[in-house]
């Protein structure tokens, strides 16, 4: 039985039961081996929600092997505080760091190439102090460490300087925050990779959707965790007005960026296909876009 079929049979009720860890009408062994396409964990505590989401995805050990060098890439783009929802929630990042280390990772690197002053972004977002405390190697981007990377399947860009640490990592975890954006409507997991682009990356806005899909052909995250603890609904991507912030207490985990972003769109009342990048990815045959066909596990944490 393929998991999509399973999803169709079981329906959402079964997913709820699975989430609660209760008795499944189908073979419990089968249910345990099935990894959902997406886990949507809801709960007031970001650390618990994050842990529950990863657990429901099969546990961090399913993604991280002993001795791995892991890159966790949050959005630390702006000089804003967690309440302003312009950067990834620091507790979510720190929890993922801890989970990776618990799963045996050798090193967990955390970095971003921010738009505002990096020192301010790292501190004000809360990510540097919390991720460091969790054991991460938090560093600022060093301009020397970009390498020109060919993008053979690229449609908008054929090569771009990308950060070496990402290219050399054993495993990559993408941890974006869900935000409004003036051009791409939303910034979710695809757009988060702008943070490892060197050079004059502002130019990519001229063809942003195709560029982001191009990037996804060379940067393949093992795991994608979308932070929707707080989302920014307007004046993104940096916000600044608390009136534009909505608290959802939600963590979405998956392995496919298209799936994650498609679901992410629904948080803002949009359909995935309304996002240029999701549409472009779909057109180019990268990832699913139809949420009805995905196995989505919703859990309370």
């Amino acid at each position, binding site marked *: 039985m393929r998991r999509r079929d399973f999803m169709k049979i079981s329906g959402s009720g079964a997913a709820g039961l699975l989430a609660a860890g209760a008795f499944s009408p189908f073979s419990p062994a089968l249910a345990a081996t099935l990894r959902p396409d997406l886990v949507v964990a809801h709960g007031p505590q970001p650390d618990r929600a994050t842990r529950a989401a990863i657990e429901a995805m099969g546990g961090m050990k399913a993604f991280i092997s002993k001795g791995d060098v892991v890159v966790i890439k949050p959005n630390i783009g702006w000089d804003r505080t967690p309440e302003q929802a312009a950067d990834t929630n620091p507790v979510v990042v720190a929890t993922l760091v801890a989970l990776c280390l618990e799963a045996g990772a050798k090193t967990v690197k955390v970095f971003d190439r921010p738009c505002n002053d990096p*020192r301010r972004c790292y501190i004000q977002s809360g990510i540097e102090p919390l991720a460091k405390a969790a054991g991460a190697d938090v560093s600022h981007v060093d301009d020397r460490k970009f390498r020109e990377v060919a993008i053979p399947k690229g449609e908008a860009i054929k090569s771009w300087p990308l950060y070496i640490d990402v290219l050399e990592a054993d495993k990559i975890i993408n941890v974006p925050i869900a935000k409004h954006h003036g051009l791409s409507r939303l910034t979710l997991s695809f757009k988060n990779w702008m943070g490892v682009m060197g050079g004059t990356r502002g130019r990519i806005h001229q063809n942003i959707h195709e560029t982001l899909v191009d990037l996804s052909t060379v940067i393949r995250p093992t795991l994608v965790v979308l932070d929707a603890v707080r989302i920014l609904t307007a004046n993104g991507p*940096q916000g600044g007005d608390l009136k534009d912030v909505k608290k959802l207490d939600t963590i979405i985990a998956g392995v496919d960026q298209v799936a994650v972003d498609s679901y992410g769109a629904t948080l803002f009342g949009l359909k995935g296909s309304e996002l240029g990048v999701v549409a472009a990815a779909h057109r180019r045959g990268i990832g699913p876009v139809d949420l009805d066909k995905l196995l989505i596990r919703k859990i309370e944490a």
Partner: protein
Amino acid sequence: MTEPVARTKRRKPPTSKTVWARRLSQGAFLLLFLFLFLQTEQKGADELGYPAKLFLDFDPLLFLSTLLSAHKAAAALWLSLVLLAITAVLGRVFCGWVCPLGTLNNMVGAMRRWHLTDRPRGWFRLKYFLLIALLAGSLFSLQLTGIFDPLSLTVRSLSLGIYPAFNYAVNSALDAAYQPGFQGLTSAADVANKVLQDTVLAFRQPYFRQGALMSLLFLGILGLNLVEKRFWCRYLCPLGALLGLTSRFAFLKRSVSEGCNTCGLCDKDCQGAASPGTKDAWLASECFYCFNCDDPCPKGAVSFGFSAKKAPEALDLGRRNVIASALTGVAAVAVVRANPIFKPLTPQPDLIRPPGALPEREFLERCVKCGECMKVCTTGGLQPTLWEAGLEGIWSPVLVPRIGYCEYNCTLCGQVCPTGAIRRLSLPEKQKTRIGTAMIDKGRCLPYAHTTPCIVCEEVCPTPKKAVWFERLTVQNRAGDPVEVKQPHVDLDLCIGCGICEAKCPVMGRPAIYVFSVGESRSKDNQLLLDAAGPY
């Protein structure tokens, strides 16, 4: 029998404890100065954690000249009265024991192993004339003291010249180690990079206009020590002159006992050219209290002690010289002001001052060009002016957004300004302070001129309700196909002129959006709208 000592080199007598104490003090203060200098940088929060401008706070010359020019002195500058009081009692101990520039001069002077002349030039009056000219100018609102003030000069030279060059040198060495050809070096370079980054390197390579000039001037001052040791301190330093005048009745005095045969050995070691060798000609105002004259005296005739007796020799500058110096200072006011930038109602479009800067006239009365604001500027966008603000505004801060914008949540420049030329703003106040207004160049902007999407200026605009907004349009490209573009507009009510749009505009070279000073909160006249009050 001949005296063998006369033919061999003079043996140096042992260095006394007092001289060692002085050297220790000089080293400690120099290190403190450099430490505070390195702390004058953004660290991620809106406070520095250290009193970065401490040395400037204790500078009575800056105190006095801003008091004269602006009729007001920043609160912290009153600390400088402590230094005046100390000098009144102990003489110019600051010059000999504390001043970081004095110590650097001392160090370079010690490298001078040849003797161009054994006799000091005796030009010590020069610095008094300079001081008088500067203060006379200040009295008539001209603030040029900071150009010559040793602390201001040192902070400025290090900030804008020496330190950027140092960073460049170290970074270049690291760059070389990171080259692919030197694979083995990379990990060593990583370690070195980390250690240096955490200690002495700037977070980002600083780049300053006129950086080379700043370095050359400073190295020139240090180089003068090879002409004559402590040339600057003896002949040019206006702070030294002010302290010299203050020390006139100092109680700590040098006395020479009857044993002195005026052999002149002490003259060679005197730091300040205070003529210690001629028994009664010792000049208290020129003495740095370095205690060098004590050690070499073969007769042990020199001693220092407290005494209320009148100093043997009083400083005589000459009445005519004093008057001429003062008049020069006053005349300078008129000379620098007859400049079109002071023509009423002609504000300078590119003179974007940091947030909290006082109205231009008052700003110039206070700014001592120390460079603290430029050193601390988070993005490095604050640059020294050359002629943009007139000769009196030379080396004052101007924001050049293409080099670095004004960080929205940062108020550091106002925190380190020693004279209050840049007011210390609270963060909410700063976020509503306009330093200028952004304007769009439709001939260069991609959505306007080239039917190409781009939204970077809107994306980076930091005001909670963005000052850059879009007009959605469907335009035709060359092939006649419809293209949807979002054309940016600037909301004049909301724009604070921070310049991040200009800094990040992807149109390379001349950007398609740029900031002018028009609309700046500090000016009544430099406004665009009839109702310039706006929501702020």
